[in-house]
Structures are given as structure tokens and as C-alpha cells.
């Protein structure tokens, strides 16, 4: 069978590469990852697990997030200029960047503008030969970030200069290009696969410019990478990187303790105390770039009155939620963006827990005997580890102020789809994890007028708020944008389309032998710059 031949060839070539790297001093880092990657062509997917295994070790982007921050640095582009009108972005590409040499591909040229144009045009142009290269090629992130409406064309100026022409000014454009879907793949490798009639291999045997080269993948078990010897940013300190796929959190911890792996993501909240006490382990933690919220439907009475929404916000005991649902791994949220994000307005005061005030405000708004629905998600998400429990705590809080709550839930896909309905009955628990560290990615997506009937679950369209975020999209000066977003947060708090609930804290246990690991505020797992003591 074809797959067996391919697999054998890959593994054989791969084992040779690994043997070459398994000298006396070869360093191997094992990461107990939480799940299997869906594939290795990053732009086809939306899941963080897939990004960790594909875009982060294997590829680079024109611009990169500085390790541990959402600040954007030069990547495959050494520098860039933005035209006065904000419609043209010209990137000067880095020279001498090598693609990986593997058992299945030997590059004959360095990275150049053709690779950039290929990587984006295949997602943008419907008539591109690679636009539908495997069944159901959705380019979901590219579409989700509205790139097809935004990008007019991508022009190769010369071998080392590429120009992105936009249909409208978009200040977060640079941050967007640091995202996983913007990973640059090899056009030469793609041409080779196309000639061989094996296009689908692009998703199975990846070639990039990143710090690690692909060695082999045993489905649902192990992914192996070797350090890229000619990496433009210098060869990594570890020689081999292995992802040991371990879906269960308790088992991951046992493997970490037994020395079968060195780093693990997503520990169970109940194990945190145990990990802290273990002297062989280090526990890193960071506030996640996310927010969990309860979105009222501002189009349906009585939630169309901001006084009612405000009153209900005062009825919620966030501390009780943090204790019961987050078990110490959360932080109360007062703004729709997390505190680690630039333009976070810390001067804003939260609607404090005050059931008496809530009752008075409800009475003043003429609301009595209110019955409502609260939607609880059926799945665990980073911003909400247990939505059902959260809904129960809120149900009890609302009962204290005389509001009767019925908790409803649907299957996840159905939940996402039904909660968009403008006539939806009830307030919805949901949340968001940032994509690119830009406030626009929270405020415009979740609360902008375009999102009504879609990702704006509060169905809230406020003229003042909209004017501020629209203006911030077109301004390139960060200080000015910061002011606009700070003001937008004031309007949000005033109007209270949501009850902002919590931002989660993300933990990362690892062996104390591991050094140089930096947590990513965007939730990814990066192994460049990491070292391990023998």
C-alpha cells in the first residue's frame, strides 16, 4: 500500500537524521503534548494543538511575536514600510534564509518573494491551483480574519521585496501577519509535489524555514523534529525535539514526574499544589490572553435597558466563581480585554458584588419577577473550565435578587450557531482567546456592529463605541490607538452589554532541568531558545 511505502521511507530517512544527531552530546527535549495535530499545513487549521506542532517549530512568518510578548518583531521580513494612506505594506525580505533539507526534499534556492506570494495567494485566490488542494480546504483562519476582503493583491516587487495592497486601511495588519495562518511555506517544494501529483504531502511532510525540521510523525503517538542546522536565527541548543502525544492531564503529569517528558501543557487545576511542592519540577504561570463573559441579548427586553444589565452585573459574585470554577487559576475580569494587553484601561471600576444595590436598580428599572435563561457551554475552554458550574453559581446569585434562571445547553456546534441569533432568548456564557495581541481582535470582533448576528453575542451596536473602534482601525500611531481603545472600554462598562467574568491563568509545569522556556501570552508552545541540562 502506498501509505506504508511513504511511511517506511519517511521513517527510514528520519531515523538516519536522528542517528546523525544522536551523538554523545545530542540533547533531546520531550514535550508531552495534549493532542494530535490535524496536519502540518498550518493555514488549513484553527486549533492551537496543530499550531504548536506545525507553525511554531517548522515555519516562520514575515513578522514574529517577540518571545513571551505580543510585540511584533522582524521575521522573514527584515523591515517594512507602510504607505501614507495605510493601504500599502512593503516588506524587505531577509536574504540567505534556508528551507529545511529533509529526506523528502532538498531545496535548490534560498527563501524569496515567490514563497511569500505562494503562501498567501493560495489562500486568497479562488482560481489558484492550490486553493483547493485537498478536500475541504477551508483556509478558515484567513477567512475568519476577513483577509479576502482586506487584501486586494500581493505583488512581488523583486526577489526580496513583497508588497501587500489593501482595500482599506487596517492598523492590526502587521499583527495579523505574525499569526499562524501567515506561515511561509516553500513554493519550490510545492512545485515539486505538484509535478509528482502528490500535493497532499504538503500537509503531511512539511518543509519550512523554522528552528526545527520535520523528521517523522507516528499518528496519535509521536512527532519528531531535528534542529535546523542552517537556521537563520542560529541553530537551536537542543538537537531533537519530540512531541509525545498524551491526551490525559493526569497521565501527562505522571510522565513528567517519571522523567518520560520534560515539559507538559494544561495541568489539571487539582494537581497544581502537588506540582508546586515537587522540587524536581518548575511551575511557570501566566495570565492567559482571554476573557470569559456572560453576554446579554441587548435586543430583547428587558435586557435592552442598560440599567437592567448593570443591576444583574452587580448581582454576580465573581469571587465565588473564581473559587468554584477556576480553583485559583483565574482572575476577575472588569474589561472585555485582558490586563496583559496594551490599552487595558485599569482606571475603570468594576460593577462590584452588591445584591442589595442590584435589587434596588431592578426595582427602579421597573423589573420584577424576572425569569431568564442562561446558556452554558457543553465544553471546557481556556477561559471557562466549567460553564455549567459557572451558570449554577450565577443562577444562585440571581435568585438572591429575585431573578429566576433556567440553565440551558446545546451541543457545542449547535451552541455556537444558535447563540448568534439576534432573537435569542437568554444570556450566553462564552469567551475569547486572542489571536494576535491587538485590542481590535477583541473589541471589534466581539462587540462591533458588524458582528451582530455573528460573533457579537450581545447583539450590541453602540454608535459611540463603534466610532471609536473604527477610528482606531485606521490610525497607525499606537499611542493614539491606545487612547481610543481606553475610551471604548469606558463606553463598554457604562453600557454593560456583558457581565465580564474572568481571565484564566495558564500553568506550565516542566522539569527543573529545562531552561530558557518562555510562556506565550497567546497560548502557543514554543521551543526555540530552550535548553536542557544533561
Amino acid at each position, binding site marked *: 500500500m502506498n*501509505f506504508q511505502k511513504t511511511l517506511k521511507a519517511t521513517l527510514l530517512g*528520519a531515523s538516519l537524521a536522528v542517528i546523525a544527531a544522536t551523538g554523545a552530546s545530542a540533547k533531546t527535549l520531550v514535550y508531552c503534548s495534549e493532542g494530535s495535530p490535524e496536519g502540518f499545513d498550518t493555514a488549513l487549521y484553527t486549533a492551537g494543538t496543530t499550531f504548536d506542532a506545525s507553525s511554531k517549530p517548522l515555519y516562520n512568518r514575515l513578522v514574529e511575536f517577540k518571545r513571551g510578548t505580543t510585540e511584533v518583531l522582524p521575521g522573514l521580513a527584515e523591515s517594512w514600510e507602510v504607505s501614507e494612506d495605510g493601504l500599502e505594506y512593503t516588506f524587505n525580505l531577509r536574504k540567505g534564509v534556508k528551507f529545511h533539507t529533509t529526506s523528502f526534499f532538498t531545496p535548490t534556492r534560498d527563501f524569496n518573494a515567490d514563497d511569500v506570494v505562494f503562501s498567501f495567494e493560495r489562500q486568497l485566490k479562488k482560481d489558484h491551483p492550490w486553493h483547493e488542494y485537498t478536500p475541504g480546504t477551508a483556509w478558515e483562519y484567513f477567512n475568519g480574519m476577513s483577509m479576502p476582503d482586506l487584501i486586494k493583491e500581493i505583488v512581488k516587487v523583486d526577489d526580496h521585496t513583497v508588497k501587500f495592497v489593501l482595500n482599506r486601511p487596517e492598523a492590526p495588519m502587521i499583527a495579523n501577519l505574525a499569526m499562524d495562518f501567515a506561515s511561509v511555506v516553500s513554493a519550490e517544494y510545492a512545485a515539486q509535489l505538484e509535478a509528482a501529483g502528490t500535493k497532499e504531502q504538503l500537509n503531511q511532510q512539511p518543509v519550512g524555514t523554522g528552528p526545527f525540521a520535520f523528521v517523522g510523525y507516528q499518528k496519535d503517538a509521536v512527532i519528531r523534529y531535528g534542529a535546523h542546522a542552517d537556521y537563520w536565527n542560529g541553530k537551536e541548543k537542543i538537537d531533537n525535539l519530540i512531541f509525545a502525544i498524551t491526551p490525559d492531564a493526569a497521565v501527562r503529569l505522571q510522565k513528567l514526574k517519571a522523567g*518520560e517528558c520534560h515539559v507538559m501543557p494544561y495541568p489539571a487545576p487539582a494537581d497544581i499544589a502537588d506540582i508546586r511542592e515537587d522540587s524536581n519540577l518548575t511551575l511557570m504561570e501566566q495570565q492567559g490572553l482571554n476573557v470569559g463573559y456572560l453576554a446579554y441579548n441587548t435586543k430583547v427586553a428587558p435586557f435592552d435597558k442598560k440599567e437592567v444589565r448593570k443591576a444583574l452585573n452587580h448581582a454576580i459574585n465573581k469571587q465565588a466563581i473564581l473559587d468554584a470554577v477556576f480553583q485559583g487559576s483565574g482572575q476577575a475580569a472588569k474589561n472585555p480585554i485582558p490586563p496583559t494587553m496594551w490599552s487595558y484601561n485599569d482606571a475603570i471600576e468594576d460593577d462590584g458584588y452588591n445584591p442589595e444595590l442590584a435589587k434596588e436598580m431592578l426595582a427602579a428599572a421597573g423589573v420584577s419577577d424576572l425569569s431568564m435563561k442562561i446558556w452554558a457551554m457543553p465544553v471546557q475552554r481556556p477561559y471557562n473550565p466549567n460553564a455549567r458550574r459557572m451558570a449554577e453559581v450565577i443562577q444562585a446569585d440571581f435568585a438572591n435578587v429575585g431573578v429566576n434562571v433556567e440553565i440551558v445547553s446545546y451541543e457545542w*456546534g449547535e451552541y455556537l450557531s444558535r447563540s448568534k441569533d439576534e432573537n435569542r432568548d437568554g444570556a450566553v456564557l462564552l469567551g475569547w482567546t486572542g489571536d494576535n495581541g491587538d485590542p481590535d481582535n477583541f473589541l471589534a470582533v466581539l462587540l462591533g456592529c458588524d458582528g451582530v448576528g455573528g460573533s457579537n453575542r450581545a447583539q450590541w451596536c453602540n454608535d459611540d463605541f463603534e466610532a471609536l473602534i473604527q477610528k482606531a482601525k485606521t490610525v497607525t500611531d499606537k499611542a493614539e490607538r491606545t487612547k481610543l481603545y481606553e475610551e471604548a472600554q469606558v463606553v463598554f462598562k457604562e453600557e454593560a452589554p456583558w457581565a465580564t467574568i474572568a481571565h484564566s491563568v495558564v500553568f506550565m509545569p516542566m522539569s527543573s532541568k529545562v531552561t530558557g522556556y518562555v510562556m506565550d501570552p497567546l497560548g502557543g508552545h514554543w521551543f526555540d531558545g530552550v535548553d536542557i541540562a544533561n
Partner: protein
Amino acid sequence: MLRFLLGRLGLLIPTFIGVTLVSFAFIRLLPGDPAELLAGERGITPERRAEVLSQLGFDKPYWQQYLDYIFGIFQGDLGISFVSKKPVLDEFMTLFPATAELAICAIIIAVSIGIPAGIFAAVKRGSIADQAIMGTALVGYSMPIFWWGLLLIIFFSGILGWTPVSGRISLMFFFPQVTGFMLIDSLLSGEKGAFLSAVRHLILPSIVLATIPLAVIARQTRSAMLEVLGEDYVRTARAKGLPPRAVIGLHALRNALIPVVTTIGLQVGVLLAGAILTETIFSWPGIGKWLVDSISRRDYLVVQGGLLLIAGIIMLVNLVVDVLYGLINPRIRHN
């Protein structure tokens, strides 16, 4: 015998049609679709959703999708996974050996301990040993697999350090997959210590997966033996002065095995269901976890194809059991 075999084979046809219908309908009856789930919180516009579904062929009428599925089966084509973009059959063939290896080890453990334990309990009926064996079997039968697996990992791997925590072989070993059975491949690789590593990795998951079938087989063997031991021909054998070993081994056991063989056949389905949990705990790359992941992602073709293949295997095993049954018990064959 031929007529009996043909009759059994003929019965497979309606079963096969039923399986295709159920596997096809099951995943489509669940709310939510792949496009919606792929987009997550980010959302997808109705136009974009329609576009994605049409690319996948899920906009066609159901009868047409079903016919495509059936024609595909006869051409050995079960479609391509929406998630991994690989042919369903290739994915199954890559993962199935892992599940099969685990299931075979588990059934060997279950049979080799369950049958002797059942015989012993029957022979020593009413004794403390009998009560202990049957009590243990009841505990085994009611064991929550997930909890049991984790308990064994914490004790044997965490505290004692005797067995590895999870996986199929130490990450140090890296050789081509030839048969997909790690025990065989590790021997073929010629790498020192590889086979032992594979065996050590198999111990805990096999024990966990064997627990429930072992309990069932022990109880079934005991009750079948008790029934047979009361039969006239056993009394006759004893009266002839045959040694107890011969009475039990030659006369009683052979007859008692008939229902036990059926039970073992039925346990194959139980093993494949138990594999889902066992594979998740022990990070075992088999078909159980693959199917569950595919259901939650609404990877329609993987679910319908995977279910069909598993059902096919269960049908095959049951056919073999039926034939064996016919061989052991001529009465069945002639009826």
C-alpha cells in the same frame, strides 16, 4: 458443514446493509457540522459555511451521499478525512494494528486466567477460594476503567517505577513500521532492548483492558462448568473411576467450553469499546481514540468508515466463533 457456512455468510449481507445505514445516519443525526466546529468561537458566515460543505460534498441529498458511500466501499474507497486530509482506510490501517495488538494481549490474559479461575471456582464450589474468585470477578466487572488505569499508572509507574507511564515503546527507539505490531516490529528492527521496551509498555494497558473480559469469562466458565459437572455423563465418568483431572479436563471442560467460546467472541466488541478509554489513558495510538476525536469534530467520512470497518471485524470474529461453535457442537451445525 458447507451449507452451514453458506448460511452464516448469507446472514452477513443484511447485517452489512444495516451497519452501513446506521453508521451513515448516526453521525449525520448529531447536531452541528464540521464547518461550524472548525470555525469555533470565531464563527462562520452562512455563505462560507455553504461553500465549505459543498466542497466536502455534504450539500448533496442524503440518498446520493449514501450511494457514494456504498459505491466507495465496493471500490475500497472510504473517502478522505476532512481533518487530516488522508484516506480513511490508510488511517485505519495505520492505527488498527495498535488496537489489535492490545486487544490480542488482553484476550490472552483474560482467557488464560479467566478459564482456569472459573474451573477452579466450579470445582471448589462454595469454598472460600470460590467466593474469593467470584467476589474478585464481580469487582473486576464493575471496575471503572479510567480510574483503574490511572491507579495502576500511579502505583506501578509513579511509585514503584516498574513500568513506563504510557506510549507503545520508549522514545529512544525509532524504526520503520513494518507490520504495525510493535512486538513484531521491535524484533525486526534488531535494536537491542526494543522488544523488552515494547513488552513493558504493553503490560499495564493489557491488564486494564483485560479486566472486564477476564471477570466475564471466569464467571461464565464457572457456571458452565457447574452445569456440566451435574450431568449424567460426568457422573458416569467418575463412576468409571477416571481420575478427577481426566473427568474435568476431558469430559466436563470440553462441553463447558461451548458457551465460553461464544462469550469470548462477544467480548471482542467489549474489548474494542474498552479500547477507547484504555487508549486515552495510556496514550495508545489506536482506533478507539481516533473515532472519538472524529465524532467530536464531525469528521463524517472517518466516523462512517471507521464504524463500518470495526463492525466488519466484529462480524468476522463472530463468524469465526459461529464456525468454531459448529465444529465443537455438531448439534448446531445440523440444525
